[in-house]
């Protein structure tokens, strides 16, 4: 993966550019403030060093002069909030796509891996039961539920079609995890007991990393998976090949036994 470097990773989602522009603006401002301030500070340190015969200038400045830099900071911050943070936050975290127009994927985190579930042709996620959880059935999927029969469950591998909205329902089986895909600029905690929605629209075909970004135990650093963003045809092909691996639905004859 040549996606990473000494600066920000490559951008692979529709909102990555929006987040990066914020990072650039803030860092440019920060460096500007620091440099100007550093020049002034150095000037003061040299100019007002102790010298024989040079008296201290005692006149009081008004208390207000120190508030001028504050005012500038405030104006900058208000601008940042009103014109950048509020609208961008609204579109990235507060507005979720309609499940009808989006691919819906369920990601369930556990110590120390990711389970990715696609609803299958019926578009519905089937029932899960905690008592059915087994190493061969990490989600405890109840295959007797008709909606569950066609669900596709994959470990540590998420395939997504390019240029399509994806709604991810994030869950956790045990402790707090965090789904982080650096190239998407996507990060969200997986909170046990809650189903946290998040969305992304990948816009670049490629192979990315899904890492856990919240301390989740001794194997935390091993908790990672791969994200493959593919063309729609490749994605459909992959999904079909995966569906073929599902156990055959129970037939009438086997039930009669």
């Amino acid at each position, binding site marked *: 993966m040549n996606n990473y470097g000494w600066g*920000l990773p490559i951008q692979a989602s529709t909102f990555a550019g929006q*987040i990066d522009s914020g990072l650039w603006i803030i860092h440019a401002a920060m460096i500007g403030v620091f440099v100007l301030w550093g020049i002034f500070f150095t000037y003061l340190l040299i100019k007002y060093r102790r010298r024989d015969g040079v008296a201290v200038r005692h006149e009081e400045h008004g208390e207000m002069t120190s508030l001028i*830099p504050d005012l500038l900071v405030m104006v900058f911050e208000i601008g940042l909030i009103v014109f950048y943070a509020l609208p961008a936050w609204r579109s990235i975290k507060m507005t979720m796509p309609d499940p009808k127009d989006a691919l819906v994927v369920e990601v369930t985190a556990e110590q120390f891996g990711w389970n990715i579930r696609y609803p299958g042709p019926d578009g519905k996620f089937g029932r899960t039961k905690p008592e059915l959880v087994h190493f061969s059935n990490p989600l405890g999927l109840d295959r007797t539920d008709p909606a569950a029969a066609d669900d596709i469950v994959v470990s540590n591998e998420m395939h997504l079609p390019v240029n399509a909205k994806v709604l991810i329902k994030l869950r956790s089986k045990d402790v707090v995890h965090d789904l982080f895909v650096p190239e998407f600029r996507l990060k969200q905690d997986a909170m046990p007991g*809650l189903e946290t929605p998040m969305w992304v629209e990948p816009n670049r075909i490629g192979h990315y990393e899904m890492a856990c970004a919240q301390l989740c135990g001794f194997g935390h650093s091993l908790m990672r998976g791969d994200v493959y963003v593919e063309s729609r045809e490749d994605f459909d092909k992959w999904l079909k090949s995966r569906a073929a691996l599902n156990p055959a639905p129970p037939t009438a004859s086997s039930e009669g036994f």
Partner: protein
Amino acid sequence: MSSEHGHDAHELSFLRKYVFSVDHKTIGLQYLITSFVFLLVGFGLMMLMRWQLAFPGRAIPLIGPMFSPDLAPNGVMSGEFYNALGAMHGTIMIFLGVVPLGVAAFGNYIVPLQIGAPDMAFPRLNMMSYWLYLPAGTLMLLSFFLPGGAAQSGWTSYPPLSVINPGQTVWLLAMVLLITSSLLGAINFLVTTINMRAPGLSLMRLPVFVWSEMVASVILLLAFPPLEAAAVLQLMDRVAHTSFYMPKDLVILGQRYTGSGGGQPLLWQHLFWFLAHPEVYVLVLPAMGIVSEIIANNTRKPLHGYKTIVYSMLGVGVMSFLVWAHHMFISGMTPALSNFFLVTTMIISVPSVAILTCLIFSLQGGSIRYNVPMLFALAFLPLFGIGGLTGLPLGLTVTDIYLHDTYYVIGHFHFVVVTGSIIALFAGVYHWFPKWFGRKMNDRLGVIHFWGSVVSMVGIFTPMLVMGLAGASRRLYDPTAQAHNLIVQPLNVVSTYFAAALGVFQLPFIWNFFHSMFRGEKTPENPWQATTLEWACPSPPPHGNFAKTPRVYRGPYEYSTPGRATDFWPQTDPS
């Protein structure tokens, strides 16, 4: 107020004088030495982690084989041990190192002297604070030797992980002791400052350091009880199988969790950060107070904007209770709530910027004396500035999505706490050392300590900011196990070398401290020609401090007043 105390010179036994002392000065020094020892321990834990981060999977040199095979098989650190080191490094540095040093050590010794009081309002309570703090810290350290080891769920102890991980019970017990100790101290500081000021010392004549301790005490008093309650709830989840923080249907490593469930892990995060964010200001305010004292003294002119600084500190104190959830933007909390905390977070930067601006403007027109305490105090300004500035992209919801849980966060808060608070606390040690022991620390060693520490600190934490921007995640036992950390991995090596250098540069300080205690150059009563009250009594002050209760005639920073023969006009000078 109690001039009879000044002559109270009956002999005390060694135990009552140096161990179970009720004298605020002895307790202050006990806190000072203990918290420096904890800082050193916390640093040692960090060096082990830094080795693993720079050279993952390689045996720890020299001491590696000394660890039990559970912790470090063949000298190579295990994931559990790494997590325990991480949790304990944070806990020790914050709760056992910097806060006791800034609030309890300096506060105990300096606040009663600066307000002209013979002691703290409740000397026995004061002794109890220390004697709760020391066992709490000892218990915390001993947990490394218990079966299962020390807590390993981060200093933030997020459930459900903290409820199922080993070591956490002792951590919680130690925290309960520690919080009780802090609460007693906070009450004591407030009562002392409000009731025991010398005649004439109105609130607006208090030195900035006293103000900073007062605001820090109010924060501790109001923020710690919720954490104490939260810690007891977590303790119940662990030992009594309640489910305050445990949701239902958990399946942990293939086993169903047997508790009843129905709890909410987010509740802990709210309660924890409701303390832990104000706690940041408890770390920073005394540092700002110390820096203000030293800057006024060494520019030989009044602080620029004394009132602005005081009101800003009060503003920071109030606002610090309204920003906690900016640590939780991506926690799964309702996203709309983040907007509120975004706005409050930007608001709290306003008084902080005002304080820094006043301190810089204070240099203008002065006659700067570059002694060792002043070097540290001046270094605080730009370096703490970096800490503050790097908080901006983390406090902003949108950019935090990417930077959260990366090395950027670690870089940011270490610039705040290490090159901010700890640098200022060093300044305080050099500044008040003559007060404590009647002797001065060696200047040459002080300058070596200063440049060595500042360069090393910047060398440790700047690479972390770069790594964070490249996306490198924090809290990873083996950063090379994830592809997105690989390219910036050499920076981990750089950080580790600078961390080792930082350790080496503390040796002159340690030697200087103990050597100067007994052999340092003797100093007069007021060696820095300062104006505040602590310099109006002998050094070290006798039991009861002032021979006669001082009377205060003016504000704290009357330096270079026109028409006077000397360039300082002590608060107690009636002329």
